[in-house]
Structure formats: C-alpha cells, structure tokens
C-alpha cells in the first residue's frame, strides 16, 4: 500500500521539505521485502546522497519513491511549490524513433512548459552540454555518455522541485560531470532538492549536504559527514572509509 501525495507545504523558505519518504517495507514480490524502515527527507536546496553497497536497496528505494513497485508499504510526499519531480535514471531510456529535440519537447509538454520559454531553455541546455549539433538526431545513434547527457538535460529542462538522480556520473566525461554539477548547483540555489544515489564517494563527499547510508535494505547511518563519522567511530575519516566500516 503506497501512499503518494503531492501537496504545497508553506514552510519557511529555508526549511521547505520537498520530499518526505517513509518506507515501512518494499520489494519486488509480496512477502519478500528488500528494504525495511527507510525514511528520508529532502529539503529545498539540499543534496542528499543515497549511498550503499551493491544490493543494499538504493534502487528499490528510488523505485518505491517513483511508485514503480507493486509491493510497497510507504508514504511518499512531494511537497514543493510546483509539485514536479525529475527522475534521471542510471540507464538511459528513450524512444528509438524520436529525435533529441522531440524528447526535450515531450518533457516540456509533461510539465506544461510552452513556446519561447521551452525553446530558450532547451537551446541553452543543448549549448551547455555541447549537443546542439545533434539536436535533430536519434538518440539511439548516440554514445552512452551522450545518451546520459540527454537524460540530464530532460531533468534540468522541467525545473522540478526535486531531482531523483540514480548514478549520474556513469558514462559522463569530466567536462560533462563538471557541467552537470554546475547546473545542479544552480538548481539548488533556485530551491530544488536533490536525492542522488551514487557509488562515486569522493565526489559525493564534496557535494552532498547529508547522506543516507543503506546496507542490507536498512538505514545504517544518516546525517552530515560528521554524523556519519560518528556512527562509524572513525574521526576525520573520509566517506569512503566510513562506508567501508559501516557496510
């Protein structure tokens, strides 16, 4: 039983919660839960890193938030001012017969973005990710990195309240990674929250405000880096070492 709500909460600007998740249990088959008692909150402008080893339940958590699982007892509340979220999947998904521009147009249509606003924003993103040359090409002919860039552009285009990003760095070259992080920073300044699942711990350590560390389907530590260090009992340790100690 998944309860998924979209509501406009009027908290103070700095404390606006854009995503509130309480998962009692969730899994792919009834009676076989993969995650239990996972709760997390993302506030406006905050970047929350969802980290954990392979099979810890990160993807299951994201799928539960996106209402893609049939077996979930959870409450997911999107409470931003626009009630829009952007999901950037780990594996690029697209239509084989639509061009890059048409994918952007479809994303714009889904969020009610029209006319000049869409064109200006889309062209800006194409230039930013150096994809203007291929705007009328089919993404099936792109490299993995270019397909991933397309997924990022779609996410940035719709100006959501919350970004749910699954392993964004896979396939991106250093320049695209830098562009992605700059844009993400701009979006956070605008007030968007970010929930990011990643294995790239050194980057996560630099950019995330807080972390939710999952292991075997449960939260083993959460909070900022100091709180994670405290939980792992390793003072001044890197996130990588804390991860190693806790999982």
């Amino acid at each position: 039983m998944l309860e998924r709500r979209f509501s406009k909460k009027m908290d103070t600007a700095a404390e606006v919660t854009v995503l509130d998740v309480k998962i009692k249990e969730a899994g792919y088959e009834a009676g076989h839960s993969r995650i239990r008692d996972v709760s997390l909150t993302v506030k406006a402008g905050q970047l929350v890193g969802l980290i954990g080893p392979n099979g810890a339940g990160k993807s299951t958590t994201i799928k539960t938030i996106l209402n893609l699982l049939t077996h979930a007892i959870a409450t997911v509340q999107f409470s931003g001012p626009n009630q829009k979220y952007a999901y950037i999947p780990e594996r690029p998904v697209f239509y084989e017969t639509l061009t890059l521009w048409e994918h952007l147009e479809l994303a714009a249509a889904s969020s009610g973005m029209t006319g000049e606003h869409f064109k200006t924003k889309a062209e800006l993103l194409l230039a930013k990710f150096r994809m203007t040359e291929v705007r009328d090409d089919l993404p099936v002919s792109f490299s993995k990195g270019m397909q991933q860039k397309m997924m990022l552009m779609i996410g940035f285009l719709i100006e959501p309240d919350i970004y749910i990003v699954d392993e964004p760095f896979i396939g991106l070259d250093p320049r695209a990674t830098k562009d992605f992080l700059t844009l993400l920073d701009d979006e956070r300044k605008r007030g968007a929250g970010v929930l990011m699942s990643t294995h790239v711990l050194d980057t996560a350590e630099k950019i995330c405000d807080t972390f939710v560390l999952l292991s075997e389907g449960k939260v083993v530590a959460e909070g900022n880096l100091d709180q994670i260090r405290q939980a792992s009992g390793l003072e001044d340790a890197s996130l990588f070492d804390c991860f190693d100690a806790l999982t």
Partner: protein
Amino acid sequence: MNSIHAHHLFWRRVRDYLLQEYSIIKSLVDWTVWLYILIPGLLFAGNLYDGLWTKVLPLWLDKIPLVSAAVLLQLVIFTGGVILFVEEADVLFLRQKPDWMKGIMVRGLLVSAAFKAVITGIIFAVLSPILFRHYELTMLEMMSLYVFATAAYIFQAIIYHFIRIRLTGIIRWLVQVPVALLMSSAFLMAWATWSNKPDRLFILSSGLAIVITLFIHRRIHLRGTFYNDVREDQVQRTKLTALILLNSVDKPKRIHRKPWIFRKSNQLIRSQKPAHRLAASAIKAFYRNWGQSKAYFQLTALSIAAVLLPPPPANLIVYLALLFLHYYWMSSFWKAYITSEFITILPFQDEVVIDGSKFAVQGLMLIPSICLGFAAGLAVFSAWWGPIIMIPVSLFLTMSISRFGVLFWKRRAY
C-alpha cells in the same frame, strides 16, 4: 609449446560451435515426433537413390544439360563463408600472442576448406548416378570436376571473406556483386567447356590452390581487421540460427542517425496543449518506424480491396470490421507508447494521457479512415459521389470510436 595451446583452444572452439549448432537443431526437432518422419524419409530417399543406380533414369533428364549441376553447386557456393574461430574476448589476452592468433586462424581456414570439400563431396555423391549413367562421365572426369568445384568453392569463399572484412556499406555491394558475377560466370564456363578435359581442370585446380595458399598467407598477416573478423565470424556462425528464426524474429534494425521523415524534428501541430504534443510525438514515432508504417500502408491497401470486392451489404460489414481493426491496432500502439519506460520518468498527468489518446488515435486513423470511406462509398453506392458521402461518415465514425475509446480508457485509468 605455444602451438599446442592454440591447437587445444581451436578445437575447443570448434567443439563449442558444433555443440551450439546441435542444440539449435535439437531445439527445432522433437525427435520422438520426427522419428516417424525422419526414418521413413531416409528409407524413401535411400530407395530413390538406389533406383537412380539400378532403374531406368527419367526421360526429362535429357533436357537438362550437365552445366545444371554446376549451377546447383554455385548456389551452394554463394551461401558459404569462412569461419576463423576468433572471438571478441580474444582482445583481452590472445591478441598479445600473435602466434596463437595465427594458429587459430590458419586452422579455421583449413577446417572451413575441409568442410567445403565435404559439402561438395556430398553433392557429388548424390549426383553421381546421374553424372555416371546419364552424362556418362568417367571416374577421372568426375574426380577432376570434384577437385575443381572444391577449389572454386574455397577460392570464392575466401574472396567473399576478404570483401566482407575490408569493405562496408554500399561500397561492399558495389564490389561484391560484380565480383560474384565474374567468379560464378568463370566457374560455369570452365565447367561447361572442360567437363570432359580432366587434365585442364586439374591444372586449373592446381592454379586455384596456389592462389588460395597465397590468399591464406595474406589473410593471416592482415592487420587491423580484428573487429571485422569477429563480426564476420558471428555472421557465419549464426547462419543456422538466422535461417531458423527467419520467420519468427525481426531482423536486427540498422541504427540510423536521422529519422527518415520529419528529419528536422518538425512540429506536427501548433497547439501547445500537453495532450496534443504527446499525441503528435506518438504519431511521429509511429510513422518513423519503417516496418510499422510499411505494414500500416499495406493493411490500408488490402482493406480497400477487401471493401471493394464483396457484394453489398457484405462490404459494409467488412468496412466496419476493418475500421474497428484499424482502431484496435492504433489504440494498442498508443498503449505501448504511453506505458514505455521513457514516459514513466516524465510527470505527465493522467488526464493528459487520457486526452492524448483521442488525438493520437484519430491522427493515426486519418489515412485508413479516408481510404476506407472512399472504398465503401464506391462499393455501396456504385457511383462517383459515393465517396463524397462515405468519407465524412467514415471520419465521423472514427471520431466517435476514439471518443468511446477515451471513455474506456478513463474507466481503466490506463
């Protein structure tokens, strides 16, 4: 020491290949059922073959020249290729051992050649009663033709292999077609001219053998073709699978950089409503899928004939049935479109998707609806003005069906 390892690796690959072929045949043939077909079939074929040696040969053989056997052989030659037994994973370590790679490739070429000799031998064995009894060839002439056919088979297979690994796209075809014509013509001419001159055929075969040896030498010293070799090997190794799956699985699609229509991401409609934009993208996606739009136009053409041919009122029933059939197909496409992975990552409201279904299905049915209306007008009224009445009726019916469909969608909340 190295050659021993290459030898083992090669034969292991041959064994794996043969097991794979066997498993494909096994998956296709249910032996318990085939036992009732295969054994009587073999007995029948054996009896027939025995008859070719012992009984009077059919008279129609008089009308068939000896060169027909060469034509049959040439058709078999066209289907053959070379398997080098190289694999993509060889890039991990085997490429660092050139001797191993050469050892595997030489063995691959020799096994391919031996395989061709066996195939040619089987064809000759089957044809031998006719060649001996009807065309009255001597044993020496038979042997010379067999050696020549085998040499020609191996030579052509190696030439095609070179073309396939060195050239791609249209250039490959521009080279392969004239080369194939030239080689097959030369083979047929030599067969027709020298079938009773074994000495000349043996000399020609010896010449071919020298050329084949030179090509094999060139082949194993060729650099920079590793990935093409792997690709060509995969094509040759999966020939049996491809043949079996010919009618059940679509051929892998070629990856195109640009779509074949609406190449500049052209807008279909001016409306900025999300439902209209979603529907327009679905219509573009439908027409851009070449296989799908081909089937769409074929079905529309067949539908016109199906409405025009039967007498009234049967044609009216056919017309309505085909209109519903088209609706069913288009709405199924729409359902697949909006339940695809990409749409699930976009925050489309349910109402937008439901409204979009009406526009998308109407848009996709526009051409069949007009064509069916035209045909129904002619068939029912047998007058030039028939279509003027039936086309608007057809469009109205299409709109009504898609509106009814929306109600259905709302109820099911897709």
